[in-house]
């Protein structure tokens, strides 16, 4: 299992490995939105929490199809499925690797981009906390979506369509926590709910995803 994690991380960091894909996208969004919406700091401040969370979510979505698709194309997935590691473990490890290369950097980079979007002062800590709590759920849910669509050529859109509604609660609670904190209100309830979603997904979805993978391989 550790070998798999190490390999996935190594692949991500190798040239062209897609590390930073999510981060880059996040940055792009934070730059484009002010260009599109206009420079009014008032407006930007109001929409900042929402835009940052939407950006984080899209950044995850984009890097998702890489979780299994590449391994499927070059035949590694079949070999992994016939290896001694249980497929549930493979799914969990791959989702974890995805989180390390996408969710974690996003959470750490978010405060910098929040400055670009003029987020109000009290929101910063909650922003990091909510992303750290919420992105694991995004990776795990995404791994489930990727497992459902792995055999399909260009399953990208289909996966986005499947995963998107599943992401809604995470997005709402995450953005709400930051919005409330930025307004000086208490954001701990949505944070707790966020933690609940993450715990639930991490506990249950690997089984659903492994089931889907097994079906897709045959």
């Amino acid at each position, binding site marked *: 299992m550790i070998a798999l994690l190490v390999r996935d991380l190594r692949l991500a960091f190798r040239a062209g490995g897609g590390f930073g894909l999510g981060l880059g996208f996040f940055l792009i969004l934070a730059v484009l939105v002010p260009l599109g919406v206009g420079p009014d700091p008032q407006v930007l401040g109001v929409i900042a929490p929402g835009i940052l969370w939407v950006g984080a979510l899209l950044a995850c979505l984009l890097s998702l199809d890489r979780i299994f698709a590449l391994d499927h194309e070059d035949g590694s997935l079949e070999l992994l499925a016939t290896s001694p590691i249980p497929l549930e473990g493979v799914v969990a490890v791959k989702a974890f690797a995805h989180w390390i290369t996408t969710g974690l950097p996003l959470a750490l980079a978010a405060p910098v981009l929040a400055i670009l979007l003029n987020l109000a002062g009290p929101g910063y800590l909650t922003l990091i906390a909510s992303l750290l709590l919420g992105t694991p759920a995004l990776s795990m849910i995404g791994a*489930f979506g990727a497992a*459902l*669509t792995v*055999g*399909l050529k260009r*399953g990208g859109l*289909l996966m986005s*369509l*499947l995963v*998107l*509604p*599943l992401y*809604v*609660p995470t997005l*709402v*609670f995450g953005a*709400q926590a930051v919005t409330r904190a930025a307004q000086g209100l208490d954001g701990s309830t*949505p944070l707790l*709910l966020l933690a609940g*979603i993450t715990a639930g997904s991490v506990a249950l*979805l690997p089984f*659903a995803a492994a*089931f*889907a993978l097994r*079906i*897709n391989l*045959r």
Partner: protein
Amino acid sequence: MASFWEYANPVKFMRLSGWLMPLSAVLAAVLIVTGLLWGFFGTPDDYRQGSTVKIIFLHVPAALMAINAWAMMLVASLIWLIRRHHVSALAAKAAAPIGATMTLIALITGAIWGQPMWGTWWAWDPRLTSFLILFLFYLGYIALWSAIEDPDTAADLTSVLCLVGSVFAVLSRYAALFWNQGLHQGASLSVAPGTRMDWSYKAPLYLCMIGFGLMFLALVLAGTRTEIRARRARALLTRERVRA
């Protein structure tokens, strides 16, 4: 003794649905037509909302069926996953487009209603929002069915999606409520004391709701019959190809 599961046999199911489908279709047509005519011409205009209120006779039954269709798909998916009855999977497949259409009808009639009432076609009210999300769930489910060629694989995958999706649909509903306490009115047909709606509205509304329920049944049966025929054609073709 004939058990319920025997109807999971396609042949038995075809025989049963052969008469059940037209029967419920006719009943549905009668009930809906009566309900709508009564509702449109036999009820007084609302003192606040004028005649626009009458769209409720489409709006509410459609909304009801949109949710019930998903519930039915959930049950059918469970039956497929646990007992692997093919008719069950095909019924879930047939129900999805119908449920999606119902959701769309609820959304569109709501929008038509909202324009005079709230002065806007669309508002991000929690109820509307959760219906929009439900619509996305339907789209994803249908897309997954159509993207996979092998029917059993597709049935397995869509069933898992339906299970996981149901959990998240409920979560989304709470999230939407948490997000915005909206404009939309609450449950109007609650049996609790202080019911806000007059019987002169309720009676035709109930007719329409039962009619929509029967219409849903008829459509699902028809859809399932089509799917069964398609599977039969597939089996025959396979046999041909093996012979060749």
